[in-house]
Structures are given as structure tokens and as C-alpha cells.
């Protein structure tokens, strides 16, 4: 007979994580809880004399099915919020009443019948299961093989998206950008031809004007850039060198040696 401690451990291991299906908010938490349920069910199978099914349960459910669920959760985005708006009014209470009614019906039906459990336990060892599978149920196995192939092909067909227009080459993309008025060459690095090559100093074009695009937009958003005019002012009048506006990040002071050059 089955030890009550073992049964109640299995019951706690399966029912408590299963309740997360009803009460947990995040789908990933639910998926991980269901993995716990599957492990509890595997223990139950081994307890009931089905070690082969217990191992298959672990391999198929925790190893493949729940991982597939987690894959799809990551694919569609784990932050998919569940809308709390009720489309059907009172659906929550109807669902609870329906589930409770189902529970009452099933438990009443089961408690009506009395089975005398067989004295000797069954042997669900792999060789016994295989002997039955490939003799009495061999046609079912063949049909299930066809079903699995069909399911795999069906999943491939359903998730396949045909390319609607031919892939655009890099040459076409670049031509489009230039026709739209974009600069055909790379943006200059910050500090190119400027007197300082810090990241917040814009590059200078051949006429000596600062090129605004050469400085990262992040620094602009943080107001950590310099305009460049203070450097030119310092060139013409060294006394203005200290008067430049303080910026967020520290810049090395231009040394006197550089000014002499």
C-alpha cells in the first residue's frame, strides 16, 4: 500500500504550484510552477508502479513541453499584460461556479463506486510496457508516429512566413539614403580636426566650423557637450580660457604648451 506521508507530499507538491494557474500574475511564474507540478506527477507515477511513465513524464513534460512554453513566452514577450477588463460580464464568477460544480460532480461520482485495489502491484518497467506497446497496441503506435510527423509539419507551415518582396541589396539601400538627402559618407568622429579629441568636442569641418552630428546624441540629451566656440575664443584670446561654461563631465584643461604650438 502507499504510505500516507508520500501521498500527502505528492499532493502538496502538485496542488500548491497548480494553484498559481489561478492566482499568479506573471506567465513565467506560472510556467515554472507547472514544472513543479510535472515533477510531482512523475513521483506519483513511480509510486503507483509506473517507473517508465515517471521518467517519460520528466523528459517529455519538464524537458520539452514546458521549455517550449517558456520559449514561446520569451518570443511573444514576457511583459504581455493580461487585461483585467471583463469582456463577458460575470465571467469570473461563472467560471468559479462551473469549476466547483465540476469538482462536486466528479467527486460524487467517484465516491459512489468502490474498487478493490489489486493485491499485487503492477510492473511498469520499460520492458513490460514495450512488450505491450509493440504487440497489442502496435497499430496505435504507428498512427501516433504519423500524428507526430503531421504535427511537426503543421507547426512548420503555420509559423512560416513567405517573403513578400525580394530582399533589398545593400547598394539599393545606400542609393535610397543618398537620394533622400543623407550624407553619403560616415559621420566624422568627435574631435576630428578639433583641438581636443574628447568625446564631447565636435569635429571641425575644413572651414573650421563645428559639426554637430559628430557628437553622440546621448551626450546632447544630458547637456554634456561643448559648443566648440569657446575653444576658438581661447585661441584668439587666452584670457577667455577659464570663462567657458562648466559641463557635466570634466575635460582636461588645454595646457599652455598646446597654446604655444
Amino acid at each position, binding site marked *: 500500500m502507499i504510505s500516507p506521508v508520500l501521498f500527502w507530499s505528492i499532493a502538496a507538491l502538485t496542488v500548491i504550484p497548480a494553484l498559481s494557474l489561478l492566482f499568479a500574475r506573471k506567465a513565467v511564474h506560472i510556467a515554472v510552477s507547472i514544472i513543479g507540478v510535472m515533477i510531482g506527477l512523475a513521483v506519483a507515477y513511480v509510486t503507483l508502479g509506473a517507473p517508465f511513465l515517471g521518467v517519460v513524464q520528466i523528459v517529455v513534460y519538464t524537458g520539452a513541453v514546458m521549455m517550449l512554453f517558456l520559449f514561446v513566452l520569451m518570443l511573444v514577450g514576457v511583459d504581455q499584460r493580461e487585461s483585467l477588463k471583463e469582456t463577458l460580464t460575470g465571467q*469570473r464568477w461563472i467560471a468559479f461556479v462551473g469549476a466547483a460544480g465540476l469538482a462536486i460532480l466528479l467527486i460524487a461520482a467517484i465516491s459512489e463506486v468502490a474498487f478493490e485495489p489489486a493485491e499485487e502491484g503492477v510492473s511498469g518497467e520499460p520492458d513490460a510496457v514495450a512488450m505491450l506497446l509493440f504487440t497489442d497496441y502496435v497499430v496505435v503506435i504507428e498512427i501516433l508516429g504519423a500524428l507526430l510527423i503531421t504535427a511537426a509539419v503543421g507547426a512548420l507551415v503555420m509559423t512560416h512566413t513567405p517573403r513578400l518582396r525580394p530582399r533589398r541589396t545593400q547598394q539599393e539601400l545606400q542609393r535610397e539614403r543618398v537620394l533622400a538627402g543623407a550624407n553619403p559618407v560616415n559621420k566624422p568622429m568627435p574631435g576630428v580636426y578639433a583641438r581636443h579629441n574628447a568625446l564631447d568636442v565636435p569635429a571641425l569641418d575644413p572651414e573650421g566650423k563645428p559639426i554637430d552630428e559628430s557628437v553622440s546624441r546621448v551626450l546632447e540629451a544630458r547637456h554634456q557637450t561643448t559648443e566648440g566656440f569657446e575653444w576658438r575664443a581661447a585661441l584668439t584670446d587666452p584670457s577667455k580660457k577659464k570663462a567657458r561654461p562648466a559641463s557635466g563631465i570634466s575635460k582636461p584643461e588645454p595646457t599652455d604648451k598646446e597654446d604655444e604650438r
Partner: protein
Amino acid sequence: MSPMAFVYLAVVLFVIGAAAVLLRRNAIVAFMGVELMLNAANLALVAFSRIHGTIDGQVMAFFVMVVAAAEVVVGLAIIIAVFRARQTISLDEPAELKG
């Protein structure tokens, strides 16, 4: 303890799964409820196999597992296809067929 206790446990799990299918609007969570119901049926099959002393019930549970694996693959592919079409996995959104 009689193996019938496991049948009652299977009933509890089945009811939780059914309530999840009725309650939740996230398609993946509702789908996990379906999986839980299939597993509860498996547990009942294995418990009955133990009660009757034959392993035919275990073979049936094995078949249920295979069919459930195929069902998961196709179902998740449908969820992905719906998500690609309308950027949501809520079960309430696709309501074009409503009269």
C-alpha cells in the same frame, strides 16, 4: 492508503486546470491549464492501472502524453501565428467572428 486517493488528487488537478482555462485570458496560461487537465487524466489512468493490476492504463497514459506533445506543438504555433498577425496573445482580442 488506497490508490483511489490519487484519483481524487487527479480530480482536484483537473478542476484547477479547467478553472484556469475558463478564467485566464492569456492564451499561453489557458493552454497550460489544458496541459494540467491532460496530466490529471494521465494520473487517473495510472491510478486505475494500479487498481486493476494491469499496465494497459499506463500504455493509455503514454498515448495521451504523445498526443499532448503533438497538441502543444500545434497550439503554440497557432499562438505564434496569432501574435504575428495582431501583436497580442489575449484570448479576447480575436473577436471578428462575433455576430
